[in-house]
């Protein structure tokens, strides 16, 4: 018992800082999650440096080389207008990462604001917020997205904002649950009794204590958002062409040529599945380490 306690103290007061500690723990205790994290970082890297890594431009057409099978010059082949699939995959990674991180960040922010307000204030604000969340969650995510995009029109900023709102509102339930359990702790009552204001309590006492839930929420959202964006692009409602997106590469005019060039159907879907898989197992590992209560969230 004493060793676990001293280990715990050593861990808590480690000189490396909490983030480095967390990374070390993921690698030490959750090798599968660490592998997922590494894949995510690799894709992030590809996305950030797509301009340098891509052998060709995303929209450089070469009519002489249309539907060329994979070769040394075009490792993933070319599409029906002679664009290099590998380069489009890399630029697609950039877009997926931008959408994934931006929308997941927005979603987490929305979840935290709604969840904290609803969970901490109780009473009628909670009632009203929860009934709206109920109604919102009634709609299938994809149907809601399709309807809203049909009104505001497709485009990168719209997609990020809508996905952020969509997942943010749904996720507020989870934050609310965490806040309700934190709210009843002694230290909150102590802060209230020495006359601390609501804003002070929320920022200094409630927020730091729901951080594990928030971090896990963010990670699981990244995968969900990337999938949702790809689904929208597949239906022709995502980021409009010629901007390459993984979902878009599987849809539209390219579909008719897949029978001639089956490689066109492979790369975008495979990348999508690998990234989402990696994000999911990384998220699972983080959840197990940070907040075991949330097991079975997905």
């Amino acid at each position, binding site marked *: 018992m004493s060793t676990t306690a001293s280990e715990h103290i050593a861990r808590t007061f480690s000189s490396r800082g909490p983030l480095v500690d967390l990374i070390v723990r993921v690698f030490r205790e959750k090798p599968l999650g660490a592998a997922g994290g590494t894949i995510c970082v690799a894709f992030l890297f590809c996305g950030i440096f797509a301009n340098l890594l891509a052998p060709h431009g995303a929209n450089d057409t070469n009519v002489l080389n249309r539907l060329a099978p994979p070769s040394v010059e075009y490792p993933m082949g070319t599409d029906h207008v002679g664009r290099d699939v590998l380069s489009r995959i890399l630029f697609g990674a950039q877009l997926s990462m931008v959408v994934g991180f931006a929308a997941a960040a927005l979603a987490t922010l929305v979840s935290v604001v709604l969840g904290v307000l609803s969970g901490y204030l109780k009473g009628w604000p909670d009632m009203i917020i929860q009934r709206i969340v109920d109604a*919102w969650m009634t709609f299938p995510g994809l*149907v809601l997205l399709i309807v809203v995009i049909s009104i505001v029109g497709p485009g990168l900023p719209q997609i990020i904002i809508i996905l952020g709102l969509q997942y943010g509102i749904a996720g507020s339930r989870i934050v609310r649950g965490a806040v309700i359990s934190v709210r009843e702790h002694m230290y909150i009552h102590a802060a209230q009794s020495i006359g601390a204001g609501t804003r002070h309590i929320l920022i200094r006492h409630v927020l730091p204590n729901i951080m594990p839930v928030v971090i896990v929420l963010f990670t699981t959202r990244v995968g969900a958002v990337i999938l949702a964006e790809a689904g929208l692009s*597949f239906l022709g409602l995502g980021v409009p062409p010629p901007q390459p997106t993984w979902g878009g590469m599987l*849809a539209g005019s390219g579909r008719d040529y897949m029978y001639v060039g089956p490689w066109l159907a492979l790369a975008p879907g495979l990348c999508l599945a690998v990234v989402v*898989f990696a994000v999911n197992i990384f998220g699972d590992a983080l959840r197990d380490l940070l907040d075991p209560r949330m097991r*079975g969230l997905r």
Partner: protein
Amino acid sequence: MQDFVLRRLLALVPTLLFVSIIVFCSIRLIPGDVVDLMLSQNDISTGQDRAQVEAALGLDKPLLIQYFHWLGDACRGDLGRSLWRNTKVTEQLAARLPVTFELGFLALVVALTVAIPIGIYSAIRQDTLGDYAARSFSLVMLAIPGFWLGTLVMVFPAVWWRWAPAIEYTPFFEMPVQNLKHMLVPAILLGLSLSATTMRMTRTMMLDVMRQDYIRTARAKGAGEIRVVIHHALRNGLIPIVTLVGLQAPMLIGGAVIMEQIFVIPGIGLMLLEGVFQRDYPVVSGVFLVVGIGVLVINLIVDLSYGWLDPKVRHT
């Protein structure tokens, strides 16, 4: 039980109200855009035409009045007419709902027959090779997007064996075999992607139940392992799965939209997409409302059956 049903029905009212507000607002909060789009599509843009279109759509009245008009019509079963076909939206819905219902039902059957046995196996053989294989399968299915799976099934059998899934819809009651030939492939794909969550849930539930005292008691009195699993664990472990079916209804409908698009199935998903691309707002809002109410009703049925299955729920 009567109290329980009544309470559950009453709780539905505010949610329904907010659902109707979300549907209404999503379509009309930006009315200028809708009218502009309709006008630009028809190459007319004079101020008079604009006023006419607005009046025809009832957009010239204050928002609150519009809402009550729309709500009143919707309550009487009038969801307006399609702007392009001039048919009643409710008639189109009546023709297309059974198609999506069939797809969803088949997918659910596939999902449950795959997920529940594997989930149980995974739980009673925890941390064995089979358990790892089942869990990996469900994680992979969670990551693979349905539209990619659909695309692969369309492309590769055609390239390798010159076989492609049927994409011509025939009503079930006219030609059942033809109909199932068309529906089975998308239903299996949709069911497999749904099974991932159900499998994880079944496993968690069974693991939880298997640690209960009454399982130990059953074993102590000498019941065989199969009897323990089927008679004692399964009956308690499966109750939450019923709730999960309700929770999955939105996912099922979302997945159906994608499958209907890939396999050209004339259900409400395809109707929604056609409405979106043709800017046919009465159609879009009609599908939107029906989907929302549909999910609410499914959840209501699930809640009621849950109360019926589990006496504890009834009395809390």
